């Protein structure tokens, strides 16, 4: 029985199965699709450079708000690019529906959620860090951008905040996958809405401090605001009350995971995948 379990789970335990899946997925980008992935990285690098130019222009005309310095803004933009995959989690949950490959995940000897999480880490996080994160961190000083946190304490707090943001991101991803299941043939629509809403409401691309004050405040209280805005403001030292940000993130993590597990389990029963 022990032997069967070992074979079925790949390496004998969930954590090792997760590691194995992650490793296999991270190797997959070298199977032929690297050109597209590299193209995606180029878009992100161009976007980063463009935003730094715009922020510099705003600073040179003294147009930046009083509570935001150019250095903080640049670091915010840099870290949002470096941590793009962690702050904008898109697991294969939705895409596997229209590919029809979702059934394979249900057959694996691990929870489907764990399967999606390990695939996301392997397929997106590892290559993103190696081929975009590290080069950007090395290149940033050339553009006069500091990659360091505001202080050691803020660095530690932002790490905790990042972990909570990741938890929220996966919960939201499961909710969108559930929506896609209910939309049946509308997976593309679910993904398009999600990408658009994420880019605006998470604060990943444009910091809320540059928006009108009340609106920025409102956005930061929403669940998506805790995903990118939370950890990045703590990292750059622009969060006035970092512990409140962490508390809010914790609240959203617990609420959204409870909701995601319930909705995902309900939606699974309605899942239809034509595949292709």
């Amino acid at each position, binding site marked *: 029985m022990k032997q069967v379990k070992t074979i079925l789970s790949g390496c004998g335990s969930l954590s090792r199965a997760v590691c194995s899946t992650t490793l296999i997925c991270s190797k997959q980008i070298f199977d*032929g699709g690297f050109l*597209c992935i590299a193209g995606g990285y180029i878009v992100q690098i161009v976007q980063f450079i463009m935003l730094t*130019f715009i922020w510099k222009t705003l600073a040179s005309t003294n*147009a930046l708000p009083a509570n935001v310095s150019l250095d903080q803004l640049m670091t915010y933009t840099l870290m949002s690019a470096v941590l793009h995959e962690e702050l904008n989690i898109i697991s294969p949950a939705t895409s596997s529906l229209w590919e029809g490959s979702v059934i394979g995940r249900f057959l694996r000897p691990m929870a489907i959620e764990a399967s999606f999480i390990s695939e996301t880490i392997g397929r997106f996080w590892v290559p993103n860090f190696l081929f975009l994160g590290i080069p950007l961190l090395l290149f940033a000083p050339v553009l006069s951008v500091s990659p360091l946190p505001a202080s050691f304490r803020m660095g530690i707090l932002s790490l905790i905040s990042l972990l909570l943001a990741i938890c929220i991101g996966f919960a939201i991803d499961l909710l969108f996958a559930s929506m896609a299941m209910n939309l049946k043939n509308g997976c593309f*629509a679910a993904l398009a*809405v999600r*990408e*658009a809403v994420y880019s605006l409401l998470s604060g990943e*691309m*444009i910091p809320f401090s540059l928006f009108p004050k009340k609106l920025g405040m409102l956005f930061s209280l929403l669940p998506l605001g805790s995903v990118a805005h939370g950890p990045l403001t703590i990292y750059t030292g622009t969060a006035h009350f970092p512990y409140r940000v962490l508390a809010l993130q914790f609240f959203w993590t617990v609420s959204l995971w409870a909701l995601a597990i319930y909705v995902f389990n309900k939606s699974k029963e309605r899942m239809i995948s034509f595949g292709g």
Partner: protein
Amino acid sequence: MDNFKILIRLYRQYAKMDLLWFLRDTRYFFIQLVSDVVSGGCTIAGVCLLSANFKNFSGMTQNEILFMMGYALFIDGIFMVFFMGNNTGMVSRIIGRGQLDHIMIQPVPLWAELLAQGFSPVSGSPIMIFGTGLTAYGAIRAGLPINPFTILLFLIYSICSIVIVMSFIYLISCSAFYAPAAAEEIAGVGKELFSSLKTYPLGNMKGFQKHIFLSLIPVGLCAWFPSTLLIKAGKYGLEAILAPKAFYLPLAAAIFSLIAITTFKKGMKYYETYGSPRYSGFGHR
């Protein structure tokens, strides 16, 4: 002339098919409609909200930025209406999957089929309608006159912008001739480049940086540059139009399309010689 008639007939057929799809699957159409409107709204909202906090964001007033966002959405709308169907705008998929053969066996020229098969006047229309409305609203708010002259100029510049977008996408998609599996999705990268970056005003950017975004990475030519010209034309009339700057966009569109066509023809020659690995024993799909 015959080819032109064929093109019109093809457009008619694809329009009919698109309408039939809408009538057959209205629920999905409305899902798509909501998705398009939300996507379009969120894309422009970021920069609009950014401009709301600054009196003069990158050399443009808030209303002028609104007009520019309308222009950007209108370009997206043209893409959706004319090139979204059948992966015409994502041509690297067609090339990479060996589906060019499906087009080549049709009794029409390749260019005519590629131009017509993406035509989706019903399913692709929401963004175009949204873009047209926002452009008109932005123009009124910015105090720009709406007359046949400005509308004509707007249409000419829009065509130039979409030619640049499509040329760029087709240019990078040509890599799929040589690396079908690796470059199958590369058109999406080109599309994403324009979708995410064209909405930023480049007004106060330094010369060299600005020129990069107006030549090598032509995102500035698909919203900011034509919008500033249209705003000038609206405010100062013909004087602004006669300036050499006004001819830069059509010239850039011509150069980009020429490079894209030449590269595509070269890729086709390679394709004619080596075919598609899709049909080989070791095909990637």
